[in-house]
């Protein structure tokens, strides 16, 4: 169950009172870090030095992420080194975890309200649709079930689609696999995955031609001028709040919108007559073609892109003890080093990752201040914490660079 974080402008929205930026229980980017108490901020400065160049790190973001069954307010802070030569290195990032015991947390109650409501929908849904099998009129199927903002009903709408789609396409197709469009597109994704595994990386071994590399170097000098790091310690990234949403809901909604748009586009296209070309293609029937979905050859990046295509502006991907969405091929050995807790030696598991879209918001004076491909944060699975002595604990960070970073260096 993945949660996605998106950028939210600080002074917007309907409520007039702005959230207090010093409230440490809100997830945000940029500005200054807000710790549970001030002693932490002074004590933690000593560990906020880049592992490569020993300069002070800049605050990137903080996430408020209490755990299930824990009576703690818990937040994770991320700091990184602004030095351009330290970008894309795992040891130039620092992750700090702070916790505070909170009495007022109630134990989570079982969700009785939602689940029974869901089950009858799915069981009667099929029965309702069964009547509509032979109906040619689109109006009857759609007017009986009014779309409502509650997402459970959106799922129903998706199940209705097959009738509408099949009618417009005029196919006598017995293939029952076509019934649910949601599963069909997922299947397509799976097939795509199978295809991708077999394709070779085309561009992996190509050498840049000698003649153009000089022109490229010139261009790099003018455009990618990495300014000398004037270590102004007061520099900070612009401040944004993070708004959180569930991935499944967003994906469902986006798929629905997509289907609507595509249906409109298809109406413009007119009816596709499949049989008229039999005369012209005598003996030359087009074959089912397994075309790879990409020519650039980067299968891992393509899979990444496909995963985020319904919400490409996501900046945080939260999946406690889940799997990171890798941007480039990750070596198992290097990843495992991030999987052991520094304090208690138990294993770490993946908690969340920063997505490449975040780089667009880490600007200082309108120049990109920090670059990365994606950043994984691994935290202690036991959530070790010493209530009496601890102010903060350090967690593991793993950084992946942009897939073409080596071409720009």
């Amino acid at each position, binding site marked *: 169950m993945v949660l996605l974080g998106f950028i939210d402008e600080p002074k917007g929205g309907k409520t007039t009172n702005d959230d207090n930026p010093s409230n440490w229980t809100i*997830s945000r980017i940029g500005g200054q870090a807000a710790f549970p108490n001030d002693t932490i901020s002074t004590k933690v400065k000593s560990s906020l030095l880049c592992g490569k160049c020993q300069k002070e790190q800049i605050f990137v973001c903080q996430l408020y992420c209490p755990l299930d069954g824990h009576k703690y307010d818990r937040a994770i802070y991320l700091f990184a080194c602004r030095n351009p030569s330290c970008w894309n290195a795992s040891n130039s990032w620092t992750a700090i975890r702070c916790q505070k015991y909170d009495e007022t947390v109630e134990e989570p109650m079982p969700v009785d309200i939602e689940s029974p409501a869901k089950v009858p929908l799915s069981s009667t849904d099929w029965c309702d649709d069964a009547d509509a099998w032979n109906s040619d009129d689109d109006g009857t199927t759609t007017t009986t079930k009014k779309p409502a903002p509650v997402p*459970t009903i959106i799922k129903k709408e998706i199940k209705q689609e097959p009738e509408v789609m099949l009618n417009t396409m005029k196919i006598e197709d017995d293939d029952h696999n076509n019934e649910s469009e949601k599963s069909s597109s997922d299947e397509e994704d799976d097939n795509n995955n199978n295809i991708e595994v077999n394709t070779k990386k085309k561009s992996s071994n190509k050498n840049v031609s000698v003649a153009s590399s000089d022109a490229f170097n010139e261009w790099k000098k003018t455009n990618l001028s990495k300014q000398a790091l004037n270590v102004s310690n007061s520099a900070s990234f612009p401040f944004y709040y993070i708004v959180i949403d569930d991935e499944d809901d967003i994906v469902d909604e986006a798929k629905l*919108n997509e289907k609507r748009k595509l249906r409109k586009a298809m109406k413009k296209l007119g009816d596709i007559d499949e049989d008229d070309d039999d005369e012209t293609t005598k003996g030359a029937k087009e074959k*089912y073609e397994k075309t790879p979905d990409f020519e650039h050859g980067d299968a891992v990046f393509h899979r990444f892109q496909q995963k985020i295509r319904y919400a490409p502006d996501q900046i945080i991907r939260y999946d*406690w003890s889940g799997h990171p969405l890798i941007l480039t091929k990750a070596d198992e050995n290097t990843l495992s080093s991030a999987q052991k807790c520094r304090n208690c030696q138990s294993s770490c598991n993946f908690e969340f990752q920063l997505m490449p879209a975040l780089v*667009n918001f880490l600007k200082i004076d309108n120049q990109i201040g920090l*670059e990365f491909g994606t950043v994984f944060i691994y935290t202690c699975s036991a959530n070790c914490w010493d209530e009496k002595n601890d102010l903060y604990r350090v967690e593991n960070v793993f950084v992946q660079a942009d897939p073409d970073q080596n071409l720009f260096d």
Partner: protein
Amino acid sequence: MAERGGTRGGFGTRGGRGGEGGRGRGEGGFRGEGEGRGRGRGEGGRGRGRGRRGQRPKEDTKAWVPVTKLGRLVNDGKIRTLEEIYLFSLPIKEADIIDRLLPDLKDEVLKIMPVQKQTRAGQRTRFKAIVVVGDGKGHIGLGVKCSKEVATAIRGAIILAKLSVIPVRRGYWGNKIGAPHTVPCKVTGECGSVLVRLIPAPRGTSLVCAPVPKKLLQMAGIQDCWTAAKGCTATLGNFAKATYAAMAMTYSYLTPDLWKETVYTKTPFQEYSDHLANTHKKYTVGLGDKHYQ
């Protein structure tokens, strides 16, 4: 910024009943919940984030958020033309890059055909869409996509076509008056059994070819051309790909005016010439060093 659905507050595994749709109390610690969506994992209870509601922008107003470094450079305007990307041999992984760099790109669906695959449970029909994109000024792209639904196939084919945009070199048949109007030389492209040959033609000839390559040549911006085709040109996919391959060859062909292209970088020998001169001296002593290269 436009509004989004969702709440601020916390991430986490705890479910909560956060606010949504105006029902929020501003207190929904959003821990992976929402209203009435059974997570099915026993998440429930009251979340604790102190959040304010924010809302996500609606679908139509989404601006492009680049994901790759090249995308960011294009978005910022550091790369202004597609030719720079070709010159630096950078792989293009986002179709929006092409949208940004070629704003007047047109796309056209050449054909949508059903193709069948034999499965144990009978035949599975999918739709294959062939789409060509071009701006009429020397850029062409071809995309082929197979999918269960027509519209998905078309959309996927358009994206593939944009990712495969290629420059087309145009030249003259005779006098070099006016703008280039035809292919620079005879080029040929093959795909499957189909072979397509493009031959330079004088101005005013217009495109002398079958409808499929005509569409491609028109979108590339070639005004006059003679063609010769061989093989089973009825297979439209191969025919289009063969024409595309032929147009790709125009910039691979070494014509005499490119003979004098200067090489900008120093060859390794030039750079380390002093070092090599010293080492050479040892070997050529006693052999008459002038005549050995």
